[in-house]
């Protein structure tokens, strides 16, 4: 199969003149002949980089101007029009037709339009120069060079993205090493993915919710927590080791200097493989008689309210996802295991939600009753969790 076949299959006639770039992914994880979703962000980052270089090109040729003409950036839209399988996977990106929503808006000149082709070629040249240990083209000021931070973040050793232009046999390869060399030519640190185990060494919810962490070498890092649930969980795990995934700044020796963005903190302890939605679907489908002959099916009305509350706690406040089970009474219960705490939220017909937490180490207990019909049910539940984790903090102090 070739790219043209692929286009014809999905989009009708293929217009080769619209093709802007091909990105061939090979090595490492790409050996599976598929492009992991992680790398779709790279296609978007590539487009953004081309726009930045094109803007710089335009301004350098029009010294009297401080900004590009209206519609310049919008004139450059890329669309992924196909993926060509083979020994590797190749993404084919076309330049999409320019739309002018304002008919009075002046049309871009052909030269302005082709500035993006030049930008693509300059990015390719930068990649080739870096691979050959040669200086980058002059247009790449330190500020512009740092834009490469967004491209190829998820690349691992042995993985390559080869960019090529239509009608050209020149290939410009982006690897982890080439990327690092380009960015470090403009500064002392480069941005990369962080996946590291750190110990929470302390935290303060009163001053910006900053938590401190240390790695096994004793180096310190600080992270900010924003969501109420994240803060409470971090407080509950002071002195424990957690896995931190996100973005960080590394030096030329790949030593991590700063965590700039953490996407996820993974705490020890199990979380269910199913989402809240999937678990609640399973509960709603549990038939009558599931436990004993006279056992009612879980109440659908209660299930709707219970799901809304638990979902808000998990997605809105970022508490861990609980394990959810039906109860023979027709109710349901959500259970969390978080460090020494065993926590449950139980809803049975005709009652409020019963929140109960037991610290299995100290025997400390926290209880609360929350009306499922209350508009403030989520806030009241958060207060319960604050009392649970707050008692840990008081104890730690």
């Amino acid at each position, binding site marked *: 199969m070739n790219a043209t076949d692929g286009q014809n299959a999905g989009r009708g006639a293929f217009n080769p003149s619209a093709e802007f770039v091909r990105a061939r992914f090979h090595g490492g994880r790409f050996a599976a002949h598929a492009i992991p979703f992680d790398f779709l962000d790279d296609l978007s980052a590539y487009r953004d980089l081309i726009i930045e270089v094109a803007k710089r090109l335009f301004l350098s040729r029009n010294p009297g101007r401080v900004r590009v003409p209206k519609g310049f950036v919008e004139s450059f839209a890329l669309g992924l029009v196909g993926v060509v399988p083979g020994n590797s996977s190749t993404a084919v990106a076309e330049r999409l037709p320019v739309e002018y929503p304002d008919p009075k808006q002046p049309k871009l000149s052909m030269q302005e339009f082709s500035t993006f082709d030049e930008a693509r070629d300059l990015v390719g040249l930068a990649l080739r120069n870096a691979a050959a240990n040669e200086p980058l083209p002059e247009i790449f000021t330190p500020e512009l060079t740092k834009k490469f931070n967004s491209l190829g973040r998820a690349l691992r050793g042995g993985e390559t993205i080869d960019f090529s232009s239509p009608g050209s046999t020149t290939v410009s390869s982006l690897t982890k090493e080439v990327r690092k060399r380009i960015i470090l030519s403009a500064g002392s640190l480069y941005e990369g993915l962080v996946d590291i185990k750190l110990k929470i060494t302390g935290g303060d919810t009163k001053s910006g919710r900053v938590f401190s962490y240390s790695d096994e070498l004793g180096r310190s890092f600080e992270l900010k927590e924003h969501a109420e649930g994240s803060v409470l969980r971090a407080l509950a795990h002071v002195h424990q080791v957690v896995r931190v995934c996100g973005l960080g700044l590394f030096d030329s020796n790949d030593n991590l200097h700063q965590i700039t963005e953490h996407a996820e903190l993974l705490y020890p302890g199990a979380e269910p493989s199913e989402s809240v939605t999937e678990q609640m679907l399973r509960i709603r489908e549990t038939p009558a008689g599931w436990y004993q002959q006279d056992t009612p099916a879980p109440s659908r009305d209660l299930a709707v309210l219970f799901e809304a509350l638990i979902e808000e706690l998990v997605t809105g406040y970022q508490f861990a996802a609980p394990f959810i089970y*039906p109860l023979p009474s027709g109710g349901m219960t959500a259970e969390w295991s978080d460090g020494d705490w065993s926590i449950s939220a139980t809803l049975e017909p005709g009652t409020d939600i019963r929140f109960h937490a037991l610290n299995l180490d100290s025997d400390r207990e926290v209880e609360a009753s929350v009306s499922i019909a209350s508009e403030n049910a989520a806030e009241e539940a958060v207060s319960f969790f604050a009392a649970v984790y707050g008692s840990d903090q008081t104890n730690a102090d």
Partner: protein
Amino acid sequence: MPINPASKLTGAAELLLRQANPSLVVDGIPSSAVFGPNSGDQGQFSVDRGALITPKDAYIAYLAKQRLSSGTWGLTVEEFAGCALSAYSDPLVGSPAHALVDYSSLGTSALDRVKKKLKAKAIARGCLHP
């Protein structure tokens, strides 16, 4: 169901076996509801005596009654006693290993507390069969 005080189990290390309904187990983790009576049980919790039946045979016998189980979990007489719960032999026709643990003195909060403690101990021991 009346409990005969004379039949109180005293072998601290004896395992008492409980079958877990599949709906009460997610990703191999049982709900705390597995480790205590339900509202219709009048505070009496049915188990099988590990001294008289193996976890495997208890599981097979349970399924043979057309009931559902994802596996056999176990707690010792001593672990129940640690939660102020006593266990009594209560053989039934066709179930000579049947026994009861008396939760009847526990209120709602105490029941929540005890079930969580017992769940943690049972998980630490692991599912006994299959």
